[in-house]
């Protein structure tokens, strides 16, 4: 396929959209990093606060980085879907189609035919989570190591779960707490609340533990080189290379794994909590009621005539 000049210029703009936010994140990190000696393990930096009458709204590093990553994802999507053809002419179209098919297959396998509308949401949560965890590779503070971010996602998922549970009727939803025995109601309520808490803690804990271990190892190796005699002690050469091995597991593998698990749990909880039988019964009753109403209307019309 021949690329026209206009096509190339738009391509370069999309690539800029992918790379610029990451560079901006790095620059912000370098400019706002408070100077510290030794090990520094702290939460997200607070940039500024907006006064609000209930509670001051705090704008932190994790929010800024989240938005930067969202712009990156937008750039990736635009780049991959640029120049789509019925017969694929570009390599990137194969990539985009493969990603969509993979997510569709995953959703179909785990949730069933009825929830196919979920696949964009699942893909979105997966890529946002994965890129957030991976953003620490370019030196940004990864938003997923802040519990507020993962708790926000978990609450969103919890609302989704409850919405789909309520599809079987409100009475059915209340009754599901008293099963299998009425005595277990408090336990059921606790386990209902524990769902979002455990989802938030799992993701946040995994990413944070990686960050803490990396920081500890980095400072340990830095201190170790200072103990070496002569010119060897001047340059912290031990810090180069060795932490990368741990980073491979804690940042790359663990980050991608947690993204996959978060999406998987979302799928399982939503489709598992959905009361299929009750929903079908309710729909049947609705249809019957509508039929009866229509019949009554028709009869009334006939009587009038």
């Amino acid at each position: 396929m021949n690329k026209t000049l206009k096509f190339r210029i738009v391509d370069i703009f999309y690539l800029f959209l992918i790379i610029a936010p990451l560079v901006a994140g790095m620059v912000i990190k370098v400019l706002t990093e408070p100077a510290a000696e030794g090990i520094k393990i702290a939460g997200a930096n607070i940039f500024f606060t907006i006064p609000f009458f209930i509670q001051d709204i705090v704008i932190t590093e994790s929010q800024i980085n989240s938005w930067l990553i969202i712009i990156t994802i937008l750039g990736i999507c635009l780049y991959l879907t640029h120049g789509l053809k019925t017969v694929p002419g570009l390599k990137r179209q194969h990539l985009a189609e493969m990603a969509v098919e993979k997510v569709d297959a995953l959703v179909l396998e785990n949730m069933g035919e009825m929830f196919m509308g979920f696949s964009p949401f699942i893909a979105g949560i997966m890529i946002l989570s994965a890129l957030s965890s991976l953003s620490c590779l370019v030196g940004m503070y990864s938003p997923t190591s802040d519990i507020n971010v993962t708790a926000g996602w978990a609450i969103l998922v919890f609302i989704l779960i409850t919405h789909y549970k309520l599809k079987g009727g409100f009475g059915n939803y209340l009754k599901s707490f008293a099963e299998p025995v009425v005595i277990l109601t408090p336990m059921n309520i606790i386990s209902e609340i524990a769902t979002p808490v455990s989802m938030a803690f799992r993701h946040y804990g995994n990413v944070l533990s990686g960050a803490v271990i990396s920081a500890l190892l980095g400072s340990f190796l830095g201190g170790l080189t200072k103990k070496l005699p002569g010119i060897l002690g001047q340059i912290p050469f031990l810090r180069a290379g060795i932490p990368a091995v741990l980073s491979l597991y804690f940042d790359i593998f663990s980050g991608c794994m947690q993204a996959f698990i978060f999406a998987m749990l979302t799928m399982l909880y939503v489709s598992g909590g959905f009361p299929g039988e009750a929903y079908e019964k309710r729909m049947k009753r609705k249809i019957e009621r509508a039929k009866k109403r229509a019949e009554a209307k028709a009869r009334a019309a006939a009587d009038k005539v």
Partner: protein
Amino acid sequence: MEIAIGLILAGCALGAGCAMIAGIGPGIGEGNAVGQACAAIGRQPESKGPVTTTLLFGCAIAETTGLYALVIAILLIFVAPQRLVNILVNALK
């Protein structure tokens, strides 16, 4: 005053250490899961793909309790001492 602050710091450090005992549980659980998965792959080598996926998923879920302990330990080390010392200082004023 110094003794009280020292006690607070010692308590926080000891508590963080004790909290991480919870690491035993996920260790045993994940080891068990991996052993069973190895046995399953040994019996049916062609089922390696699905077994590995399920294994990773299960391991990540089994890790949760250990991560709870980690969160508690991190809170005890980085958050609790300052707060408790502040409370003590305010109480003594």
